[in-house]
């Protein structure tokens, strides 16, 4: 890569970094390209040399975020066998970018179609990792049989409610740090196998998951 190409690539990264940071702080709707240019210390026109429209920039931020989250979760979760460990890896991955993730889920329906599609693709990677671990625990009777989509959507529904209403549940600190473990334990108790195949109540989850 020659100097000019390297400078161009560095500028593109700087725009994406600055945009992601501002989106996390203020939300997608409130941030303008002029504001991003000012914060990045570049001319407004230079943004459009890299991203023809604001929608293109938001889509690029989302695509990069999706790759980052998917790759990070893959690294953290791949070696994990238990669903609890994979859920903890998911919480950790979100916790590393909690504000930006929360902006995505709160404003997703208002984002450009391409950004929404990148986000959906990312969530399938998460769902795949969760179900991979859950399938073994379904087989061994620790958790009840649940289809892949419902398992993920149930977990996401719980987690996203707390994240999008963060002001009700935390005093400025991280939702993941303050409530993540409690939500995880609650979710595992919800999906625990309640009866064995003879219809008898089972209590093995209490042993497997502590508070369950």
């Amino acid at each position, binding site marked *: 890569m020659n100097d000019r190409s390297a400078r161009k690539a560095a500028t593109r990264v700087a725009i994406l970094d600055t945009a992601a940071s501002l989106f996390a702080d203020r939300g997608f709707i409130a941030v303008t390209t002029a504001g991003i240019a000012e914060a990045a210390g570049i001319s407004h026109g230079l943004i459009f040399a890299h991203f023809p429209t604001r929608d293109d920039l938001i889509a690029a931020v989302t695509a990069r975020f999706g*790759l980052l989250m998917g790759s990070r979760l893959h690294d953290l979760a791949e070696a994990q066998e238990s669903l609890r460990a994979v859920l903890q890896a998911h919480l950790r991955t979100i916790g590393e970018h909690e504000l930006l993730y929360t902006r995505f889920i709160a404003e997703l329906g208002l984002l450009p*179609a391409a950004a929404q599609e*990148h986000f*959906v693709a990312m969530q*399938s990677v998460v769902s795949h990792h969760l179900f991979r671990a859950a399938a073994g625990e379904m087989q061994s009777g620790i958790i009840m049989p649940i289809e892949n989509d*419902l398992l*993920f959507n149930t977990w996401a529904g719980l987690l996203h409610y707390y994240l999008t209403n963060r002001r009700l549940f935390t005093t400025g600190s991280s939702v993941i740090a303050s409530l993540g473990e409690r939500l995880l334990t609650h979710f595992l108790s919800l999906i625990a196998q309640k009866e064995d195949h003879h219809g008898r109540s089972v209590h093995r989850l209490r042993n497997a998951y502590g508070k369950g």
Partner: protein
Amino acid sequence: MAAQCIACGMPMEKDEDFALNDRSKSYCRYCARPDGTMQNYDEKLAGMTGFIVRTQGVTEAAAREAARTMMAGLPAWASKK
């Protein structure tokens, strides 16, 4: 940094992540046909669409658009933009 599948973006670290366990391949086992060759665009789009439907329960139309957009950013499908 792990290699990344050119057709789906999956990180590839272990031998078994690569098509035919062959580290010289630029695509993963999920993007390979049984004979080890890489799936074409339509095959991969169908597979990715099914994956998104199965993992999130969204409609096939929504899944197909998500798959199409995600694939557009990957090296194997750059010409499809």
